């Protein structure tokens, strides 16, 4: 029988061991969020008397009960429950879909020129059928444009690398080509999104402030720009050492500016500081060609540690967290991305390279999953999580799917 004092002593000894100091990384990450954090106003404390320590418990209880009573009276009097102008306040998105645009609100031309059904219908949500983003790429010259991985910029426009010109096609959320951008040929920073064997790829990752990093696939390097597209630097070359790439396929950046590059020949994800200093390798020997990071720096890739297709997650320091084997949902998972809420999206193909599904794992993963018949080879989603832009298996078009917000 353990005495009380013995038990207390054992508990105290047990609690003695632990980490000595907080990593500077955590302090920097917290510091980086201060300026964008909306602070509460002091007077709001009076609106939450149950949290005001300076009051006696009876006063807090009285004020709280009084507030609740006032609320009930207000509702009973119809102040909050009035129906006088409810329709006027309805959000536009809540309106039922119409089959054709009204003169004052014409439907987008891209949508009206396409069948009303989606390329790959979403049977679960027929009322919000997907809208093909566009078939109106600027393909002057007749040749179809091969596209790389789409990515949504902080301003809501979609960037997709384009092979013939080794530049980015930048589209509005409605699918209109806004511009084509890239350093011109002859410029030392000109991109090369093609390999000699005909492979085509290129990717971009954005910081919240609009600065971005381009994965210059054919030049085996990462090129950094600020929000005004001013060149800030580059790093990388072909090789197997730190900061070198054999087949760089995808790039991501977390909220503190760490840059992640997936290499599907080296099968690893290299992590760099924002200006290219090598930090560590993640998933060495296990990484798939695609990756995404959430705001906290957790990394997801599309290969299980045993080499089978699946979804694997690593902690910010590269420690293996777990994996999901999902042969029934996506036999060949490919593109991965997160929305602004931290929800994770995965698209892929079937074993015969037909479009499979788009799966959303609601954050934190494990809580809920949504599955739509909207597969492809890469995906970008809006920050709100209400639209998905899926690169089709042909690599030539992107389809937009309107999906229910999480």
């Amino acid at each position, binding site marked *: *029988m*353990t005495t009380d004092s013995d*038990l*207390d002593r*054992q*508990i*105290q000894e*047990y*609690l003695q*061991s*632990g*980490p*000595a*100091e*907080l*990593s500077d990384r*955590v*302090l920097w*990450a*917290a*510091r980086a*969020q*201060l*300026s964008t*954090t*909306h*602070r*509460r*106003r*002091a007077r*709001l*404390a009076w609106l939450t008397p149950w*949290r*005001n*320590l*300076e009051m006696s418990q009876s006063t807090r209880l009285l004020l709280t009960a009084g507030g609740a009573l006032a609320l009930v009276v207000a509702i009973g009097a119809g102040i909050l429950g009035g129906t006088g102008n409810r329709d006027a306040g309805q959000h536009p998105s809540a309106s039922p879909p119409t089959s054709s645009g009204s003169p004052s609100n014409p439907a987008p031309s891209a949508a009206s020129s396409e069948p009303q059904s989606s390329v790959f219908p979403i049977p679960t949500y027929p009322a919000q059928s997907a809208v093909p983003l566009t078939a109106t790429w600027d393909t002057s010259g007749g040749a179809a444009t091969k596209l790389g991985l789409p990515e949504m910029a902080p301003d809501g426009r979609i960037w997709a690398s384009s092979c013939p010109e080794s530049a980015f096609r930048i589209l509005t959320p409605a699918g209109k080509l806004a511009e084509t951008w890239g350093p011109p040929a002859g410029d030392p920073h000109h991109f090369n999104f093609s390999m000699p064997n005909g492979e085509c790829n290129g990717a971009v990752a954005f910081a919240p402030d609009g600065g971005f990093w381009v994965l210059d696939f054919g030049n085996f390097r990462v090129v950094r720009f600020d929000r005004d597209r001013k060149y800030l630097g580059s790093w990388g070359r072909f090789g197997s050492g730190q900061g070198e790439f054999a087949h760089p396929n995808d790039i991501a950046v977390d909220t503190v500016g760490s840059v992640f590059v997936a290499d599907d020949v080296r099968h690893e994800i290299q992590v760099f500081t924002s200006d290219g200093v090598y930090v560590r390798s993640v998933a*060495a*020997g*296990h990484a798939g060609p695609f990756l995404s990071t959430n705001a*906290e720096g957790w990394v997801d890739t599309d290969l*299980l*540690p*045993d080499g089978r297709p*699946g979804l*694997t*997650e690593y*902690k*910010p*320091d590269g*420690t*293996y*967290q*777990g*994996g*999901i*084997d999902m042969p029934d949902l996506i036999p060949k998972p490919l593109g991965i991305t997160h929305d602004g809420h931290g929800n994770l999206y995965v698209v892929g193909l079937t074993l015969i390279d037909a479009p499979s599904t788009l799966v959303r794992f609601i954050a*934190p*993963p*494990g*809580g809920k999953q949504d599955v739509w018949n909207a597969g492809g080879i890469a995906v970008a989603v809006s920050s709100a999580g209400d639209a998905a832009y899926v690169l089709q298996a042909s690599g030539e078009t992107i389809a937009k799917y309107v999906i229910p917000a999480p």
Partner: protein
Amino acid sequence: MDVLLVERAIAGDEEAYAGLMAMAGDRLLAIAYRILRDLHRAEDAVQVALVNAWRDLPTLRDPDRFEAWLTRILVRACYVEADRSRRWNANMRVLPIDIPSTSDPMSTVADRDRLDRGFRRLPTDQRAIVVLHHYLGWSQPEIARALELPIGTVKSRLFYATRALRAAIEADDRATSAERPA
């Protein structure tokens, strides 16, 4: 804790708050780690707590209570982190992997520690009370004031936690005796 720094931080001085973060960081990590028993989750909880504290600082009326107030925010961040981890773990199937784990240097020690098994089975709210009482040395009224809990709740959580830890130890003792050859 420097009250002047706290007052400047309440007024919106980020530099002052950065100083407070640097001063409080190690202590917060120590508490969070002992509640969550995982370094990375503890770091996540500390980061969330530091940002939440900055958000809520204008509502702090007594700068002298900053430390206890910050501890309460941290404990709540630990609750959220523990819940998040639990839901993740419930759905994730951890597949075998041959890379060495570097996440928790305590794990090999913890496997040998019979108290650890009992502690990890405790609900997070009971763990928090145990840590504040046995690690920080806070009295039950101090805990109740800091966490804004009725004193009876603190007492009952500590009672049930202690009983569970005792049961874990004594169950281990019985198992050891039973396995010992006659």
